[in-house]
């Protein structure tokens, strides 16, 4: 009973806080540009409105078009539940859960991309093709980062891997994981979440035909994914797991805020890259994570 209650509290925390991160990013962007910008809580209003709205479905889609976003959302929520919050370990910790985490993210990608191909639109096809192709390099970077973390902590349980800092390679790992965060969450310079040109979009192109509650689920899932990556980045770089519970949560909150501000600054100061250059940037991320792995190796005295 206690277990279920803890799990529900943790889940509620993740789900409620997730839409805050895009709000902070937008606030940073408007602040840099000297605009007033949308309210920080804008995404909450959007989600509420979408949840009540009717749905326009393409005549071509199967029932999987609605099932896809739901399964993707469940997979992301499951991945979030495997991460520690500050120094509070998740309810489920086992040897190898780090790889379950990676594969849950892959499941979310599979469902989103497959649902994107259902309406038979070329725009959505392009978006899905880009998403799954860039994910190949992102996955290589994440596996390299996990290898570095597991070498450093001598474990393969996410909570134990994230307890110490990443040691000598922390800066490299931070840079690599930050690039992966930008790519996987379709932020500038990989993708522009504010763009209105279908031909150049990645994530937004995949969800063009979604509307109403399924779109709300997709948007909430996207914000959850952003929070997951921010927490992963913060906890793998900083030794948050060693702090007292309250201090840990406070430091984690500050770190996630810093990541959001950094994303906002990158979006304000950089333009998106041409598609040909995206793989190069992602390869840089892979190399950074590989160097972090080498540093962990050296530090581990192997």
């Amino acid at each position, binding site marked *: 009973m206690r277990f279920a209650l803890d799990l529900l509290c943790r889940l509620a925390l993740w789900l409620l806080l997730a839409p805050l991160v895009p709000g902070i990013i937008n606030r940073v962007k408007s602040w840099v540009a000297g605009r007033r910008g949308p309210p920080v809580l804008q995404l909450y209003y959007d989600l509420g409105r979408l949840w009540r709205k009717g749905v326009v479905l393409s005549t071509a889609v199967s029932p999987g078009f609605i099932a896809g976003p739901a399964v993707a959302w469940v997979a992301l929520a*499951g991945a979030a539940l495997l991460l520690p919050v500050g120094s509070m370990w998740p309810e489920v910790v086992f040897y190898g859960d780090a790889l379950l985490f990676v*594969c849950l993210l892959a499941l979310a990608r*599979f469902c989103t991309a497959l649902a994107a*191909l259902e309406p038979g639109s070329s725009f959505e096809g392009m978006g899905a093709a880009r998403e799954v192709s860039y994910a190949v390099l992102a996955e*290589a970077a994440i596996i390299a980062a996990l290898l570095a973390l597991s070498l450093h902590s001598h474990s393969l349980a996410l909570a134990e891997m994230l307890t110490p800092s990443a040691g000598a390679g922390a800066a490299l790992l931070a840079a690599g994981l930050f690039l992966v965060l930008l790519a996987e969450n379709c932020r500038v310079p990989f993708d522009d979440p504010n763009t209105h040109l279908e031909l150049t979009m990645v994530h937004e192109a995949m969800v063009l035909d979604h509307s109403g509650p399924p779109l709300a689920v997709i948007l909430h899932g996207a914000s959850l994914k952003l929070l997951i990556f921010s927490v992963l980045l913060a906890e793998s770089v900083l030794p948050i797991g060693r702090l007292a519970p309250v201090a840990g949560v406070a430091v984690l909150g500050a770190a996630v805020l810093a990541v959001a501000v950094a994303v906002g600054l990158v979006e304000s100061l950089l333009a998106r890259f041409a598609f040909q250059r995206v793989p190069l940037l992602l390869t840089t991320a892979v190399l950074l994570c590989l160097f972090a792995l080498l540093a962990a190796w050296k530090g581990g005295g192997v």
Partner: protein
Amino acid sequence: MTVGAWLLAAAAVTVAGLLGAWHAPRLWLAVTLAGCAAALAAAVWVLAAGVPWEWRPGFLLGGEPVHLLLDGVSAFFLALLAVVGGAATAYSREYWPDAAHPRTAPSGRVWWSVLLLSLGLVLVAANGLHFLIAWEIFTMAAYFLVTQERSRREVRQAGWLYLAASHVSMVCLFAFFALLAARTGGWELGPLRGSTGLAPLFWLALVGFGLKAGVFPLHVWLPSAHANAPSHVSAILSGVTIKMGVYGLVRFSGWLPVPPEAGWVVAALGVASAVFGVVFALGQHDLKRLLAYHSVENIGIILIGLGFALIAAAHGYPAWGLLAFAGGMLHVWNHGLFKSLLFLGAGSVLHATGTREMSRLGGLWRGMPWTTGCFTLGAAAIAGLPPLNGFVSEWLVFLGLFGAVGAGGLPAWAAGPAAILLGVTGALALACFVKVCGVVFFGLPRTAVAAQAQESGPLMRGSMLVLAAGCVAIGLAPILFWPAVASAAAAWQPAWAANLHSAPPAPLVVLGTCQIALALTALGAVALLRSRVRRNGVVRAVTWDCGYAAPTPRMQYTAGSFAEIITGWFGWILRPERHVERPHGPFPTQAGHAVHTPETVLEHLVEPAGSAVLNFAAMVQRLQHGRLQFYILYLVIGLAGLAVIVLAGGVR
């Protein structure tokens, strides 16, 4: 009943099926299914008890004493044969009926029974000569099954390539068993781990069995054979017969000593097969050819597990070696299940539409909901996604590789890159199966045949559902299948048995619980979202295409465009051939752009080598022209040469 009785029953009823195959198709179906069930019972018995079954009746066959053995390793593969064989047998009744194929259906049934019997015999034979005989029979039976539609030119070519490759493999195996018999003094097979002099023979076995398994770059025969065979045959070829190559490698790397480099080479071949297999798959437009390349990929994943297990055995790391081996072995089952499921699904599509060309399909979910569901489930499983079976075995292989990196030493240097490339393989497979499902089953039908596709009959659907249920079962309750993997591991490497007595080395119970929770939550979330959508009201409209009001099915994204980004990265090995027809004149009437990915290793490596040999032979042939004077001249030159040799020798 004991194992022997079950096996005897399986053999007897399959022989009965063989006799009745020509005239009594219903009887054939019933007894073949019964035979598969009996073989499954025998295999489960051995795997559950962990005690091998051995039989030496004392009479000779072909001059050698009969010796049958069913231990953990062979029972593991026998179980796969029974399940996939049974499902594909039932499927073939509806897929290849006598009414549509009056000439080939009866002979196909006969060869099918021969194939199942000889595969079973390969697994239980413990005598080198009998192993070879059974191996050759199953190779030939598979040839006749592959070439059932031999009125088509590409089927004949595929069959010929298969036959040639199989016999290169056979030559290596002849050499392997003959040398083994010469060194040990008999054809009897069994554990000979002590005699280190036998280690170099492993390389012969690696080429022979590797060719059968379709390891990159020895896979050249596999795509065309699996694509052109009838789909139930493709299913058993991909699901079971290429696993016989894996069986050979596991069997003889366990029984015989292996050279110290063996594990490294097997692991490197595995990584190459995994990455290049999936990359070639991405370049394909033919549904079944694409699936065939994925077999190369999955054999690669199996060999990564086996290779690192060999490295662990050589360097003394039982903890992570066991995980890698367990992952590889479980992937044998998993790949057998989901790949035959996918081939049966592809066959169902082919049956309904008459085409394997993905760019002529689309929107099949409307007419074929069962096939769509089963194929999508198989696609998620092969992409290694939770909560299905492909994830469990890849997870175990990953645990082995991460363990190797953590344990340090020399293996760590190989395990790190292998883990990263395994992750890349998973992401590439995901991309490929999003493409396949999206283009074939979703969107709008691209042609009239796709629009009119009808669901296949109950036997075909039933066999797909059985295989899909297997995928779900291993995914949700992996712990139930651990004893089978453990007894295979104990039979393979008895030195590791101590690690097997305690609980499984990986938290399979927790993983299974997580998978069940994930599956149930996902179902709940889908139901909730659907009810919410229904309550809010649904309006149907045309797909959004930037306000363009009349999109046609031909404006959809194609399979080639979808894969273009990744195939562009790997253009150096794929070497795609482009055929561009540019529009001409102010009012162009036609234009075209087609991309075709050839079998690079075959066209750029094997065929040039083959034509070089033929050219050399043609050059030598010029010496033979029928003019007597020249023949006398050859004799004189030859005698002069001999004289020089004799005289030079005489000086010494």
